[in-house]
């Protein structure tokens, strides 16, 4: 599994689709994006296992700002970070995209 992460609007999906040569249909069939929206959830490890069965998983980083005042938001961004760690551990390749530019954090370039 390839895990792609990075800040909001960084061009994560465009970059990886170009790198893999995937069209819209390939992407829908083989990838899942915005997995940070699947939290909070009671069993993060099971969620990570389920997601890791896909070929490509994309998440947006949420943990870089000020700690939110709202408890629900705090739990969500904490879990989004934990989920990203679990996905990175399960991934063969981890790429972070910033300003549309990829950086390899684990494994080999696709």
């Amino acid at each position: 599994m390839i895990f792609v992460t990075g800040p909001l609007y960084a061009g994560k999906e465009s970059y990886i689709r170009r790198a893999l040569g995937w069209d819209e249909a390939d992407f829908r069939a083989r990838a899942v994006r915005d997995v940070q929206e699947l939290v909070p959830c009671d069993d993060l490890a099971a969620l990570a296992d389920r997601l890791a069965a896909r070929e490509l998983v994309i998440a947006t980083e949420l943990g870089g700002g000020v700690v939110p005042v709202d408890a629900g938001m705090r739990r969500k961004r904490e879990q989004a970070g934990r989920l990203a760690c679990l996905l990175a551990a399960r991934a063969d390749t981890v790429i972070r995209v910033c300003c549309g530019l990829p950086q390899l954090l684990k494994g080999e370039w696709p």
Partner: protein
Amino acid sequence: MLSLIIGGAGSGKSAFAEALCEKLDGERLYIATMHTEGAESLARIERHRRQRAGLGFETLECPLSLDKAAIPAGANALLEDLSNLLANEMFSPGGGGAEAVRRGLSRALSRCGNLTVVTNEVFSGGEDYGAGTLAFLRELAALNRELAARADLVTEIVCGLPNVLKGELP
């Protein structure tokens, strides 16, 4: 040469960008984008002026309309910063939105021998913002990606240290 320097608040991106400009050729020009009003702005401007003192930068105040700025041909310019310029164009009276910034960058690129653009990493704190802020983030991200695609050098600054994303440091 076009360089894009991105970093969070207090990451040392300005000092890094200034040091980068020192290594590049051309008449040094500091394109200052902050509106010169308000105590906090003035204090920040003063800190940046002290930091630049002795580096031989001419300062060009340009809170709006970069496309009309008097940039000498072949200048070694440091634009600080893109997010501020975009916020001015989007939210202050007389602003022309992201398109005005795009036009300005395009003109600056054609005038400068070396252009170094400082921009802000403000995209890792989630999406829990109002519509205006989200629109600003979308436009800034698009400008960042466009500049990164054209740039010779793109580096993120972390704790004052460069994490090079594209090209090589001179």
